């Protein structure tokens, strides 16, 4: 089978390469489509820490929604802190303003002793609505563990990608 691949005409080669590229691009575009609908840059997030136990475990996959949602106390949200690239998944415990005054939010992990003030940027005491990526609307347990594996062992990502590539290239039609 590999020998027939090597002697392929350029068109056939292009077609097989296209199959591989298609798999990747469709996955990517589905993700982006969901991001547009949910108005959230990353609508699918994996829980990386245990700070929200027992509600969320490490490795859970959560789905976020940001369109037309006002953030209430008790919502689980994902937010970004300026200067840090890992988003945090915690619960909103206090809410100020929201009417004439700008909305201010305080968050805390269920499993943490203290609120998130220390996690915010130096001098920042509250979150703004704009800092919140989205609110949790659903979750699937355990599924996200693959991503944690990818983070802890980056070579796994390369292996999986190579595997997908090889199977698509060697398949026909």
């Amino acid at each position: 089978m590999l020998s027939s691949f090597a002697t392929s005409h350029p068109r056939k080669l292009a077609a097989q390469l296209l199959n591989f590229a298609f798999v990747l691009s469709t996955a990517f575009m589905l993700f982006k489509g969901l991001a547009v609908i949910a108005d959230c840059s990353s609508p699918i997030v994996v829980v990386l820490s245990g700070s929200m136990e027992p509600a969320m475990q490490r490795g859970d996959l959560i789905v976020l929604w940001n369109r037309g949602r006002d953030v209430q106390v008790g919502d689980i949200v994902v937010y970004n802190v300026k200067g840090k690239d890992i988003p945090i998944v915690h619960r909103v415990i206090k809410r100020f303003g929201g009417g004439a005054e700008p909305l201010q939010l305080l968050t805390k992990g269920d499993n943490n002793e203290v609120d998130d003030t220390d996690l915010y940027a130096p001098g920042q005491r509250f979150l703004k609505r704009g800092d919140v990526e989205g609110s949790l609307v659903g979750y699937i347990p355990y599924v996200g563990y693959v991503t944690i594996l990818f983070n802890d062992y980056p070579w796994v990502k390369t292996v999986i990608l190579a595997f997908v590539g090889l199977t698509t290239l060697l398949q026909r039609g």
Partner: protein
Amino acid sequence: MSATTKIALTTRAADLKNTTDDALPNYLHSLKFKQIHTHTDVRLVLGYSAVIIAGTLFYFDWKFGWEATKAYTAPAVVAYFVLNSVFTYWIWFVEAGCVFEGEGKTGKIRIASSTDKHIPIYKCDVTFTPAPYSSNPQQKLKIRAPFTRWFTADGYFVAKPFQQWLASEVPVVGAADPNNVIEEIGRGSETERVLNVTGNNAIDVLEQLKAGAKAGGGSSRRRK
């Protein structure tokens, strides 16, 4: 090349079909049929346009972040899935299993192949117009044969019986390759020869059979 192509013993109808699909254009090329690649080219253009859109979005998103690209993301996603649908439609309905489309001295020909799952029979839908085009209409033909006709028991593809089958079944190919047109296979070994043998004409029948075997070439008779 085709004579030494080997398939694994745990062969599936799909592998047999793929090898046969590869052999078909090779055979027709050898008969000086010029292949028309329009279908494949359109498919490639459609597919790669979609992939390029996805790639561009990926690049901009990676470089400039979500906020900057947000305005372009929605249209890009829509464009991508529209192209994707057209691409899928093209493959399913327009290309529809086309393995070869081309033109030669003896006429135009388009061959689309298919197999049913788990049934090792190669089926072709042939659309052809014999030359000269002004005096001949377009004709359609459905032909089929089991893979055992051109694959050995240990999985080798043998070109000769495949070429004979194609040349005998399709007039345009047969006209270009008369050496491979075999009457017996053309009729299909499905038809049984009925011999009336009585005590009186047994010797006559035997003589007839001997004469028939010599003329047709013993090797072309196949046992099921």
